[in-house]
């Protein structure tokens, strides 16, 4: 990640066109243009709402435009062939760049010029020479102690031809690997996403309280069998006094061979995972279980009553007609357009035969049916709702790779920005006047300003050695 690393290292043998393709795949232009194209395309995807039912688009666009956009895949563009192609090209580009940089980075890590020779000295900007009146080995001891503070690793000492010695210190060598961490992490995340979409599924299931399911329906509309059963023991929805939702929770049990293996109450931010399948609290609802219906005379006396299981036609003791609670609405629309609350759709089968009569009974307004006229009317005395919990069900074997890639990405970025490979050379010899002569210089592959300050401090403290 810096200028002193060779950007291109891999030599491509073979025909010219291979070299050209390789150059294209590893070019900076391709990376930057791809990143900007992906951003531009993504912007389009946020302006045109994605994955809506087709009818909704007709409300915003001309029919011709809808047909065109639909054909171009603009309504599900993140899964369109051209968007996936861009992502694939990015993956190819990352792979090629990683291969291209491999040798250079490994060489940068291994390259250890142990001796501060003339050629190296010329390349160092901070080369400083200090002379001491102290004996050479006293200086050497101090030097190792001082330099060792910043460079904690083991240093290498080489004896020079003229009797002096060279000290080589280095630190943060492995920070050069950050390049691989950041770039391979993206590939790992892509791989995880692909595994998830090929080998996983997202499904949905409603489970009534007290009921058990062993299969779920995927978003693609397929039935997915589970290796176990899920039972919803209870569901609760709580609300604040303002009406805003406070808590949704389902008490779930996982059953295997009829025996309960796990029991857990799941909430919106607290799902349940079993054998790689995760259950998320997603929605809820209700359906009538039993409806107690009364037949009332005009004078208000009850002629007969029955508790009808939902969807079954039953006789009413004392009344000749039969009745069936056949339909249910949570928010019933009254003929005048206002909201009538919960309502039961009832079919009444006359005793003398003939067409059944359909009528709506309001739970909150028992006398509603009175307006129909006639000798008797119907009213709901009691309604027992069966609640169900709506669960999103996921299996995603690639998820772990996505998180692994994410952690690697963050760690890699941190290392790339905040750590560097630093090298320090010190050579010690006796000069022609018999003094101890110390020459010091260093380099870092990144954050050179910070390293220069570090070096300044070290040189200052070396000068103070006495």
């Amino acid at each position, binding site marked *: *990640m*810096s*200028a002193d690393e060779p*950007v291109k290292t891999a030599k491509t043998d073979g025909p010219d066109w291979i070299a050209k393709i390789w150059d294209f795949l590893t070019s*900076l232009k391709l*990376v*930057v243009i791809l*990143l*900007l194209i*992906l*951003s531009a395309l*993504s*912007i389009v*995807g*946020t*302006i045109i*709402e*994605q994955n809506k039912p087709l009818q909704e688009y007709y409300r915003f666009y001309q029919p011709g435009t809808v047909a065109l956009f639909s054909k171009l895949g603009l309504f599900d563009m*993140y899964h369109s062939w051209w968007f996936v192609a861009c992502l694939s090209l990015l993956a190819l580009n990352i792979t090629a760049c990683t291969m291209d940089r491999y040798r250079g980075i490994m060489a940068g890590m291994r390259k250890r010029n142990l001796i501060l020779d003339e050629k190296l000295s010329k390349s160092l900007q901070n080369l400083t020479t200090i002379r001491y009146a102290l004996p050479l080995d006293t200086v050497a001891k101090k030097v190792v102690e001082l330099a060792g503070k910043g460079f904690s690793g083991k240093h290498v000492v080489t004896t020079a031809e003229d009797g002096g010695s060279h000290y080589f210190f280095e630190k943060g060598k492995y920070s050069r690997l950050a390049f691989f961490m950041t770039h391979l992490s993206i590939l790992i995340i892509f791989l995880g*996403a692909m595994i998830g979409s090929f080998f996983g599924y*997202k499904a949905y299931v409603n489970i009534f309280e007290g009921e058990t399911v062993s299969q779920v329906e995927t978003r693609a509309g397929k039935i997915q069998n589970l290796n176990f059963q899920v039972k919803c023991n209870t569901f609760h929805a709580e609300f*604040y006094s*303002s009406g*805003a*939702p*406070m*808590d*949704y929770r389902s008490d779930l049990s996982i059953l295997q061979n009829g025996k309960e293996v796990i029991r857990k109450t799941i*909430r*919106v*931010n*607290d*799902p349940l995972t079993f054998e790689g399948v*995760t259950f*998320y*609290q*997603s929605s809820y609802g209700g359906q009538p279980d039993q409806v107690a219906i009364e037949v009332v005379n005009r004078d208000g006396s009850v002629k007969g009553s029955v508790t009808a299981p939902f969807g079954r036609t039953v006789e009413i003791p004392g009344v000749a007609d039969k009745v069936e609670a056949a339909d249910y609405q949570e928010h019933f629309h009254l003929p005048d357009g206002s909201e009538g609350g919960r309502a039961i759709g009832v079919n009444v089968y006359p005793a003398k035969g003939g067409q059944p009569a359909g009528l709506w009974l309001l739970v909150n307004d028992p006398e509603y049916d009175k307006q129909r006229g006639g000798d008797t009317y119907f009213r709901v005395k009691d309604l027992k709702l069966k609640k169900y919990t709506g669960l*999103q069900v*996921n299996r995603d074997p690639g*998820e772990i790779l*996505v*998180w692994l890639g*994410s*952690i690697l*990405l*963050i760690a890699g*970025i*941190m290392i790339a*920005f905040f750590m560097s490979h630093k090298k320090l050379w010190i050579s010690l010899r006796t000069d022609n006047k018999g003094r101890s002569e110390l020459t010091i210089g260093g380099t870092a592959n990144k954050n050179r*300003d910070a390293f220069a300050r570090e070096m300044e401090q070290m040189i200052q403290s070396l000068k103070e050695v006495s």
Partner: protein
Amino acid sequence: MTNSLLFGIATFVYFFAMVLYVSYLAFRSEMLGKVASLSMLGGVVVETAAIGMRWYESYQMGIGRAPLTNLYESLAFFAWTFAVIYLVLERKFKIRTVGAFVAPFPFLIMAYAALNPNDIQPLVPALKSNWLISHVVTCFVGYAAFAVSFGVSFLYLFKAGSEKRSPKSAGSFWDFLPSSAALDEIGYKTIAIGFPLLTIGIVTGAFWANVAWGTYWSWDPKETWSLIVWLIYAAYLHARITRGWRGKRAAILSIVGFAATIFCYLGVNLILSGLHSYGGAS
């Protein structure tokens, strides 16, 4: 409520700080500069108290939650992060002259926040999560670093232009500003601070989304825009690190990146629809 009063005072102090930073640039008096920084710090102190008070008051109301969950709280916290990060970077990089370009943000954000309803509402189930704080804080600190980079890059464009016109103009207004090379370097370093934080913000957001909704990435507008911002800064970093893109081109990319950041934070909520419902018409 006490928190509203404190937020009001903080807004006023930020306004004062903004005026001082601009006058510092205009009159070039070191004393003014110090007072400007101090009043910005004063704004931060008052707003810290305001946020703490709001948090405390939410407990008194029996709701008890971090004040980070509606547009008002989000904006107030954004202004706070902005001021804190700016002060830290001002100290680190010695860029008080940039203040005139960055200091208006906390005031403007607070003024905008004041237009929104500020009652403390209880949390809906999806927001009841320990991920809330880490997700919001990392994103906002990242945004704030990008904002400082934006201010510095903006200043760079002026300064580089003036250096070109008159290379040696000791004592002039332009001479008062950091050198264009220094501005260029700081513009990069602030992005180098913001980028890892944005990355952590996106990852914590994805992780949270997976726990709450069962999908770590659903191409919702907020997610997509955060990715766009990430891609723009990634392009900036690649161009700069491997090809040495500096100066004008880098500065423009940094400005574009911040424009996308602002859209990601506010535009998405106000214009587009999606899962982050702390703003918008609904």
